């Protein structure tokens, strides 16, 4: 509110804040924090702070500003970081106690309104501060406020346990509002905050029924969207490299501890990860459910269609069908899949996918990904309705394969690259999608009417294989099949022998298969 503060309000706030900081750091408060707090609340009341919403809002705004001003005053001397933290930790403890004890213990809405109010105030001050200070913006104070407030509200306490999902939700909303594309000066702290061990533990492990997973996937998508333009170019500037390496560490922890989370949300992540970010995408696509045993892809005569898990449909928590727009296009698509009409559908396919003539950004990648996955899942259902499974025989002569073959032939180099990527992104752990799309890309190879298509299919698979580990299981078994099965005549193609090191590479992969 822009209405002027009542006279002396800022001074009273600063006095109260300093008073609380003293109380907080004395021995007594350490031993009996509730007593110290209740005395202080009476003092706040006496100063009119608790008389209503507005004075309380003003109090939090001034108190937060005091802490941030202290940060800027002492930035030069790292030794004063302790003093900054002593102020902020005390202030955060006051906020946490007010949140915890406001309203009746059973009435969580009062508590959460207060928490969201405070978070909103800090966000507002941060964004304004970033505007004012520009490149002189300092993340330190805000980082401390958010992490210590989260830790305080994550303590083992029955009242707090009762509102843990709402607390996590409030912080996810806050971090989404502060996503790096809106607060780039805060991006390193932001990654620290969303990947803090306590935050990960709460949102991915302790919140029941995985209710935090969707919110967390949104935060990772915010991160990938921010990184995307900087990662599209192979040479990474140091600040980008630092944030990128940090992202890889977080993804490795998720791959190790929560692979099912990456499995469920891989589709949304691949929509926003630049296609040239091969290793980061492989890391996500390599995830597989922990209770699943993956057969060694190099097992001689591995019968993929005999694997127990190969028929299972993977969970995908992105509404990819809804991503197929406009509605008229979706209607024509469904109609073509059903009855192979209108016949013009195929010839118009490319124009629906192309959004510009700008080389490097001609196509709507999310639409391409959604179309490929949608047609593939419809194909699997269609094959399943005949009580069959995907094989090189059952996937052909269908409206679904018409569409894929049309895309392979009709698209230009860039478009076909994105199309083949959309297929390769489904080559993951043993499931029905991996199975179908593995057959599909091999069928497109063997049926290709030009060697250029075969070469591009090889490139798309190869560029995913030559980067450092990890490599998705489905990618390995597809490539091994391609180079092993004489039906594909792989070794007869000139591009296989186009350079000694490429030939050597193929042979090394082939040898490890034999």
């Amino acid at each position: 509110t822009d209405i002027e503060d009542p006279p002396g309000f800022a001074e009273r706030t600063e006095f109260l804040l300093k008073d609380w900081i003293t109380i907080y750091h004395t021995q007594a408060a350490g031993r009996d924090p509730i007593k110290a707090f209740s005395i202080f609340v009476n003092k706040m009341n006496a100063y009119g702070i608790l008389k209503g919403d507005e004075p309380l809002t003003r109090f939090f705004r001034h108190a937060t500003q005091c802490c941030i001003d202290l940060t800027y005053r002492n930035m030069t001397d790292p030794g004063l970081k302790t003093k900054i933290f002593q102020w902020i930790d005390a202030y955060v403890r006051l906020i946490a106690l007010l949140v915890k004890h406001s309203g009746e213990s059973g009435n969580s809405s009062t508590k959460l309104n207060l928490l969201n109010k405070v978070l909103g105030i800090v966000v507002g001050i941060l964004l304004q501060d970033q505007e004012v200070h520009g490149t002189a913006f300092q993340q330190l104070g805000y980082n401390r406020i958010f992490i210590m407030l989260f830790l305080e509200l994550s303590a083992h306490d029955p009242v707090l346990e009762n509102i843990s999902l709402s607390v996590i939700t409030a912080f996810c909303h806050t971090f989404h509002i502060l996503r790096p594309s809106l607060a780039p000066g805060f991006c390193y702290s932001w990654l620290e905050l969303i990947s803090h061990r306590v935050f990960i533990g709460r949102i991915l492990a302790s919140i029941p029924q995985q209710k935090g997973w969707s919110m967390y996937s949104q935060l990772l998508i915010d991160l990938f969207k921010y990184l995307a333009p900087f990662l599209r170019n192979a040479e990474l500037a140091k600040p980008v490299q630092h944030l990128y390496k940090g992202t890889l560490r977080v993804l490795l922890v998720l791959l190790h501890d929560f692979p099912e989370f990456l499995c469920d949300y891989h589709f949304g992540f691949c929509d926003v990860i630049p296609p040239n970010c091969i290793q980061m995408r492989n890391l996500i696509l390599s995830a597989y459910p922990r209770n699943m045993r993956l057969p060694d892809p190099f097992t001689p005569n591995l019968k993929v269609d005999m694997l127990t898990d190969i028929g299972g449909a993977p969970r995908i928590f992105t509404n990819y069908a809804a991503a197929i727009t406009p509605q008229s296009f979706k209607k024509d698509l469904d109609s073509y899949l059903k009855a192979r009409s209108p016949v013009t559908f195929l010839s118009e396919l490319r124009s629906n996918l192309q959004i510009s003539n700008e080389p490097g950004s001609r196509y709507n990648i999310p639409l391409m990904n959604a179309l490929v996955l949608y047609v593939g899942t419809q194909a699997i259902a269609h094959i399943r309705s005949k009580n069959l499974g995907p094989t090189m025989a059952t996937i052909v002569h269908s409206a679904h394969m018409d569409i894929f073959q049309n895309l392979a032939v009709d698209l230009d180099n860039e478009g076909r690259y994105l199309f083949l990527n959309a297929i390769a992104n489904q080559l993951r752990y043993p499931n029905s999608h991996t199975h179908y799309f593995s057959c599909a890309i091999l069928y497109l190879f063997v049926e290709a009417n030009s060697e250029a298509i075969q070469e591009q299919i090889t490139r798309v698979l190869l560029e995913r294989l030559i980067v450092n580990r990890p490599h998705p299981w489905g990618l390995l078994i597809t490539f091994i099949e391609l180079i092993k099965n004489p039906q594909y005549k792989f070794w007869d193609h000139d591009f296989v022998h186009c350079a000694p090191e490429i030939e050597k590479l193929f042979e090394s992969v082939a040898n490890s298969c034999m």
Partner: protein
Amino acid sequence: MGQDLMALGLNLTSVENLYPSFGGPFADSPARPQDIDYNVPPEYLIN
């Protein structure tokens, strides 16, 4: 070629979950026991 992900300071072969001692995205080694806040019995907080 991407990074050698084994060299980012995470013990990827660990049987235990990594997140409880995750040092953070910019740390090249796990958090040590003395770095990890823990809910110890209040009597231990002796100051």
